[in-house]
C-alpha cells in the first residue's frame, strides 16, 4: 500500500521477484543435501535479482559508456529507477544466500515472505533488513503499548532529523552546488560541504530512524543502521558506524566469500578494492560513485597496513580531524556526478579558483545558518540522545510528561515545516 503511493507501476516487478525468491527458497530447501541442484537455484535467484537491479539502475550507464568508448549511438532507455529497488534486491539476495548456506531455514509461507520483501518501513531507504532478523516476528505482529510508544518516538526523532535539519541545510547546499550563490569564497566551499555532510547524515539516518520506528510499532525489530559516524577517529571506524547494514551485507556476501583477509596480502588488497568499488557503484550508476568507493578502499588499505601501526601515538584530536577531513572530501566526490566539477570544488576548498578567503556572502550564510550548524554538530554526537534516554527511563511523572511534550513540540514543528514545504528533497531516492 505504502509502496503503491509512490510507485504503483513497479508492483508487478516486486511481486514477480518475490515469487522467484520464494520458489527458489523452497527448492533449495528441498534439495538441501544435493549441492549441485541447490547451487543452481541459488544462482537462478541471485542472477534474477541482479538482472533486475542491472536493468533498472545501470543499463543506461553501460549504454552511455559503451557509446562514448566505441563511438556508438545506442539510444539510452531512460529507465526510471523504482523506489528502493537497490534495497529490495539486496534483501532478496541475502535471504537466498542465507538459505543456501543453511544459516536460516526457508520461509514456508509465501504470504510471510511477501511481507518480508515488501516491509514498507524500510523499502525506500533502508536499513537492509535480513530475513534472519525478522524471521521470528513475521508470523505474529503484536502491537503493544510499549512498542507503539517506542516506535512513535523513534519515528518522530527520524522525522525531526529529516524535516528540521536535513531539509534546512540541504537548501543551503543546493544553493551552493547549483551555483545560485554566485560569489563564492574559500569559507563558503567549506560551509557548503559541511552542509552536505549534515544533510546526507540527517536525511539518511532520519529515514532509517523512521523505518525502525514504524517497524517497532508493528512489533518488528530492525538492525541499527547508524551509530554516530561523525565522531569516528578513522575511516575504518567511520564505516563501522555509517550505513552499517550495507557494509555488513558486502562483508558477508562479497568480501568473505572472496577470501577476505585470509589469502595473503595481495588478495586482501584486491578484495578490498572489489568490495569498495562495488559499494560505491551500489550508490549510483555513475563514475563518481565508483571513484568514491575506491577512494575509501585506498584509505582503508593505507590505514590497515601503515597508519594503524603507530595510531596510538597520535593525539585523539588529530585523529578526529583526519577522519572528518577525509569524510568531507569523500562527500565532494559523492555529490558531484561530474568528476571535473568535484575536482573544481576540492580546489576551491584549498584556496584555488581565485576566490577570496572570506566575503560578505559567507558572513550572511554563517549568520543565517550558524545556529542550525551548531545544533546539527551537537546532534552528531551521542550526548543528547543519551541524556534523553536517561530522562525517558525516570519514574517521575512530571519528567515523563515534560519529555512527552518535547516530542509533541518537535512533531508540531515538523508539521509546520511539512505543511509549508516548498523544498522537500529526498536524497537517497536513487539508491
Amino acid at each position: 500500500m505504502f509502496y503503491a503511493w509512490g510507485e504503483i507501476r513497479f508492483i508487478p516487478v516486486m511481486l514477480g521477484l518475490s515469487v522467484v525468491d520464494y520458489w527458489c527458497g523452497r527448492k533449495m530447501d528441498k534439495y538441501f543435501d544435493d549441492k549441485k541442484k541447490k547451487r543452481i537455484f541459488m544462482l537462478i535467484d541471485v542472477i534474477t535479482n541482479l538482472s533486475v537491479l542491472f536493468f533498472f539502475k545501470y543499463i543506461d550507464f553501460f549504454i552511455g559508456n559503451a557509446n562514448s568508448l566505441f563511438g556508438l549511438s545506442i539510444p539510452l532507455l531512460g529507465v526510471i529507477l523504482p523506489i528502493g529497488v537497490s534495497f529490495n534486491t539486496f534483501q532478496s539476495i541475502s535471504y537466498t544466500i542465507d538459505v543456501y548456506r543453511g544459516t536460516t531455514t526457508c520461509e514456508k509461507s509465501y504470504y510471510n515472505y511477501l511481507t518480508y520483501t515488501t516491509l514498507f518501513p524500510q523499502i525506500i531507504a533502508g536499513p537492509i533488513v535480513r530475513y534472519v532478523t525478522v524471521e521470528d516476528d513475521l508470523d505474529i505482529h503484536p502491537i503493544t503499548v510499549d512498542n507503539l510508544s517506542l516506535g512513535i518516538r523513534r519515528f518522530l526523532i527520524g522525522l525531526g532529523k529529516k524535516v528540521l535539519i536535513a531539509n534546512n541545510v540541504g537548501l543551503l547546499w543546493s544553493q551552493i552546488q547549483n551555483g545560485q550563490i554566485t560569489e563564492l569564497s574559500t569559507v563558503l566551499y567549506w560551509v557548503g560541504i559541511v552542509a552536505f555532510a549534515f544533510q546526507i547524515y540527517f536525511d539518511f539516518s532520519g529515514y532509517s530512524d523512521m523505518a525502525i520506528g514504524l517497524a517497532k510499532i508493528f512489533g518488528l525489530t530492525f538492525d541499527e543502521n547508524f551509530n554516530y559516524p561523525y565522531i569516528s577517529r578513522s575511516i575504518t571506524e567511520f564505516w563501522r558506524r555509517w550505513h552499517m547494514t550495507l557494509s555488513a551485507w558486502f562483508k558477508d556476501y562479497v568480501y568473505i566469500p572472496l577470501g577476505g583477509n585470509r589469502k595473503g596480502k595481495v588478495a586482501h588488497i584486491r578484495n578490498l578494492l572489489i568490495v569498495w568499488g562495488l559499494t560505491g557503484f551500489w550508490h549510483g550508476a555513475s563514475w563518481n560513485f565508483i571513484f568514491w568507493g575506491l577512494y575509501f578502499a585506498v584509505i582503508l588499505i593505507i590505514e590497515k597496513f601503515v597508519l594503524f601501526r603507530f595510531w596510538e601515538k597520535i593525539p585523539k584530536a588529530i585523529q578526529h580531524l583526519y577522519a572528518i577531513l577525509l569524510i568531507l572530501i569523500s562527500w565532494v566526490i559523492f555529490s558531484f556526478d561530474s568528476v571535473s566539477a568535484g575536482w573544481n570544488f576540492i580546489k576551491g576548498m584549498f584556496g584555488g579558483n581565485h576566490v577570496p578567503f572570506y566575503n560578505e556572502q559567507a558572513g550572511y550564510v554563517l549568520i543565517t545558518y550558524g545556529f542550525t550548524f551548531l545544533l546539527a554538530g551537537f546532534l552528531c554526537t551521542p550526548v543528547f540522545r543519551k541524556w534523553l534516554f536517561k530522562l525517558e527511563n525516570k519514574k517521575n511523572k512530571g519528567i515523563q510528561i515534560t519529555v512527552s511534550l518535547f516530542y509533541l513540540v518537535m512533531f508540531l514543528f515538523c508539521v509546520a515545516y511539512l505543511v509549508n514545504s516548498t523544498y522537500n528533497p529526498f536524497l537517497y531516492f536513487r539508491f
Partner: protein
Amino acid sequence: MNKVFVRIIIPIWLLFVIMNFAVPKKEFSETENRMLSKFPTFSIGELFNGKFMQNIDDYINDHFIGRDYWVSLKSGIDLGIGKRESNGIYIGKQALLENIKAPNQVYVQKNIDGMKRFMKRHSQQAYFMLIPSASAIQPQKLPPLAPTWDQKAFINQVYSKLPSSIKPIDAYTTLSHHKDEYIYYRTDHHWTTKGAYYSYLEACKAMNITPRNESEFTIKPQTNKFYGTLSSKSGIQTVPSDVIESYDLGAKATFTTQNGNKVNNYDSIYFNQYLNEKDKYAFFLGKNEPIVTIKTNSNSGKKLLLFKDSYSHCYSQFLTKDYSEIVLLDMRYINTDIEKTMNIADFDQVLFLYSMDVFTHQNQLMKLR
C-alpha cells in the same frame, strides 16, 4: 514513560486527522492570493505515472487544518534560529524585500531584441524605464550582509544596448535620491505611489511632458491595512501593514478592459471594492488584464502605448491629464498578434515600463513581431 507518552500523543494525533476531514474546505487562499488545489479526479493514467498520488499530497498540503497558523509558526521558528530569508523574501528591519535572482541573460537579450524589432517597424519615439527593486535602492532595510547583485550596472548595460529610437529613463538615480522615503511597500513587491511619482518626474524630462507638481494632485490614503504579496509569500506577519495612496488629478477617465472577446467598461480607474479584499493593490486598475484602455477627458489628443507589468497600475494616474488615451498591454497575457486588432501608427509615443523581476525573468517581449 511509554504509557504517558501514548496517552498524550495518540489523542492529539487523532484530533488532527478528524479535524482535517471534518473542517470545510476553502477554494481560495486569501493570504496566499492563489487558488488552492482541488481534490484530484481519478484516472488510470495518472494513477500509473504517480501524478494522482502527487495531487493528493498537494491537496492535503493545501487544505491542512489551520494552514496559515502553520505557515507563521514555521516563519517564527526560522526567524528564531537566525534565518533572515523565507521563500526568497528577505526579512529586513520592519520591511520585507524581494531577493531578486540574478538576471537570466538569455531572457534579457530576447526582451531587448523584441523591443528593437518592434520599434524598427514603427516610427514613434519609444522610451524604456527599467525599475530597480527595493533591495537595490534601499539596502539599509536588508538584513545584515544579505547578498544582492548590482542592478545599477545591469540597468546601464541594458540601456547601452538600446538603439536611438528607444530612449532610456533613469529611474535608479531618482529613486536612490529618495531612498529614505516611503517609496516601496514594506509588505509588497511594488513601488508605492510616491516611488512611482518620483520616477514619473524623471520620465517627464525624457518624454517632453511638463511634470505635474504634487500640489496638483489630491493625495489621499485609501487604506492602511494593506498586507501585500511579500507577507503572504514569506508567511511573516510581524511587519506593519502598508498604506496605499492615490494621486488623483481629478480628470474624468473611463476604463476598458479587453480579454479576448470579453470587454468590460468602468467609469473610473480606481477600484474601491478591492480595498476590502486581500489584494488591495488592485485598487489601481483592478486585476491584471491583457489589454486595458484608459480614455480621459484631456484635450491633448495624445495617445500612449504602454507595455507594462503591474508596476504601471499606480503609474497611469499621473498621465490622465496629458494623454487622451493610454493603452496598456500586458504581454504576459497576450498570445495573439496585437497588430491585427490595433493600429500602432495611431499612437504618438510608446513606453516600456518594466520592473526588474519581470524584465529579467520573463521573456514575454519576445512575442513582439
